[in-house]
């Protein structure tokens, strides 16, 4: 009885694994190819030119990785602070013009963010926010916030207000009600939103270039000219590095979450 299930499970995991990893194979091959003519399936020669440039050259890759991650993490932290109260209000209260508020918050999903950024650029120029990390962080919030709000709203929808009422009756103040009852319930939503927020922030090119004016150099800024300019080897190497950076960040998030739950279960048991 059990064996077919295990078998199917294995096949499914292998399939998922292949689907996720297969796209990386041509990237890896391209990044190391030297002469790759049709109809050869594999490159004739291997060359580390692209990797040498990306990892050790004058390209400033590592600093760009640092700046990218810094911006993505700040953007995500700000998003959490903004999205929790916003989601709370949107799910639990009904007020006049709620549809309008929702429309405004979710508009960046539909409207291309650079449309807004063209206008923001002038204002930021006057305020002296261009060419700064803060300016870029602010600009990244508009395309990322909707996803965070959406994810946390879903968490709120499954959290009855009764839970908090019960805690209140047991004497919990507003702060402990939030940290002990609401937050643990929201956490999966926050993590889902944070993953999206990090990924979207990392991949912004145009917004980062316009607001950062080239003074805030993220990995996307280095990567983009190669993708559109036609050096497939270097573009592939950068893409792999980019994917690696994103995956490591998400894994890091996952590890932190697991630790948190272990700690929590230990606390409740102990």
């Amino acid at each position, binding site marked *: 009885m059990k064996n077919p299930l295990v078998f199917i499970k294995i096949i499914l995991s292998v399939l998922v694994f292949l689907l996720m990893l297969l796209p990386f194979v041509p990237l890896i091959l391209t990044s190391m190819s030297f002469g790759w003519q049709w109809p050869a399936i594999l490159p004739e020669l291997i060359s580390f*030119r692209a990797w040498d*440039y990306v990892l050790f050259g004058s390209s400033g890759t590592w600093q760009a990785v640092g700046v990218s991650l810094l911006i993505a993490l700040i953007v995500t932290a700000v998003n959490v602070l903004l999205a929790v109260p916003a989601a709370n209000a949107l799910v639990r209260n009904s007020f006049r013009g709620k549809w309008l508020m929702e429309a405004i918050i979710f508009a960046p999903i539909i409207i291309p963010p650079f449309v807004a950024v063209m206008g923001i650029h002038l204002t930021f120029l006057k305020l002296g926010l261009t060419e700064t990390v803060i300016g870029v962080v602010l600009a990244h919030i508009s395309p990322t916030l909707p996803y965070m709000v959406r994810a946390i709203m879903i968490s709120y929808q499954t959290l009855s207000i009764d839970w908090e009422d019960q805690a209140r009756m047991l004497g919990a103040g507003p702060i402990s009600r939030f940290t002990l009852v609401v937050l643990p319930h929201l956490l999966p939503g926050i993590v889902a939103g944070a993953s999206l927020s990090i990924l979207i922030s990392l991949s912004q090119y145009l917004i980062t270039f316009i607001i950062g004016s080239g003074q805030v150099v993220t990995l996307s800024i280095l990567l983009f000219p190669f993708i559109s300019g*036609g050096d497939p080897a270097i573009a592939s190497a950068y893409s792999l590095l980019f994917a690696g950076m994103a995956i490591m960040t998400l894994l890091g998030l996952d590890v932190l979450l697991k630790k948190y739950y272990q700690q929590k279960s230990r606390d409740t048991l102990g």
Partner: protein
Amino acid sequence: MKNSVFLASSFLLLTLSACSQNVDEQTAKETDQLLTSDWQTIADSAAGQQVNMYMWGGSENINQYIDEWVAPRLKKEHDVELNRIPMNDSQDIINQLVDEKFADKSSGSMDVIWINGENFKTAKDNDLLWGSFSGQLPYFNDFIDKDAPEIAYDFGEPVDGLEAPWGKAQFVFVHDESKSPNPPKSMNQLAEWVQENPRQFTYPALPDFTGSAFVRHVLYETTGGYEQYQQPAASIPDLETKLEPMWDYLNSIEPYLWRDGETYPESLAKQDQLYASGEIGMTMSYDPALAASEVLKGRFTESTRTFVLDGGTLSNTHFLSIPFNSSAKAGAMVAINELMSPEAQTAKLSPENWGDLTALDFTLLSLEQQDAMNDVDLGAATLSLTELEEHRLPELSSDYIEIIEKGWLQHVAKE
């Protein structure tokens, strides 16, 4: 509470803008002096400055040439720090400068920008460039033929000293010698070649820069030479009918193109990929040394060669300029001057660094400097400098280019 925050921040803004205004007036005076003072003074005030150079960042060779060849020399010899800022499209920085002009931003981060053609015209029309500085540069005065049309005009627009020439580009066709030993030398021969080698030729869909340049060659050859177009497009009354042989030619080769002409590669990068993988037998480039450096990188086969048409191919000059609000104008002048030095131009000529043709006038160089340039190994895929020089045609002004790009969609792509 809210009011006081608002008041405080607006007060802060007011004081800040008042301060910057004073500084503005001072720096404006100082920088205007740079346009008239002698070179030593400029070099002195450049020492210690950091110069941000905004340029297309999609070529490892060019990036390394700037970072590892030019920047250390500038630092060592002039104490100027050159900081290369990669970007994708010069249009983006022109748009930013338009905004900065509108917002009165007086201390910008762009010190040197790399432009030509349409971007230069937009920048000039919107007063985004600093001033007539090129006459101040020693190497410009020593080694540049100022009256040559390709130096004095940029795609038909008078340069007026607002930008200094950095290099020249010339259109070449790229083919695989082992597959087609006798490349076509005129548009008529190309049409024959295309029919004999179906699906081996194509060109990037307009408005791609290189695809558009290819069509301009068709224009020159099918309508009787370039001379007639050295005037504004509006002054040719029967331009529409004049262009017809060009559309006829393009439509006549269309059925024999890659994918039977049903579609065109969307960019030169895509077309180069088709050539690199052997799917088509010919590509083209506005950079005569690109093929050689692609061979070095192992992307194009060893038997790749370039050729020009007997009737000549288009060439243009690319320039360096200084935006109106650069914060390091003296440093920018020193950097641009250094980039124009015979040594830097010779290094730039090598396909290992870049392969870009020099902007300097060969006859003004000393014999040693000429030898140094002639000694550069251009690679088997690049034509000799004299062969390129002898087949040079001037560019069209941008009003024609617009008409051709619109017309192509209507007459060729849609039919």
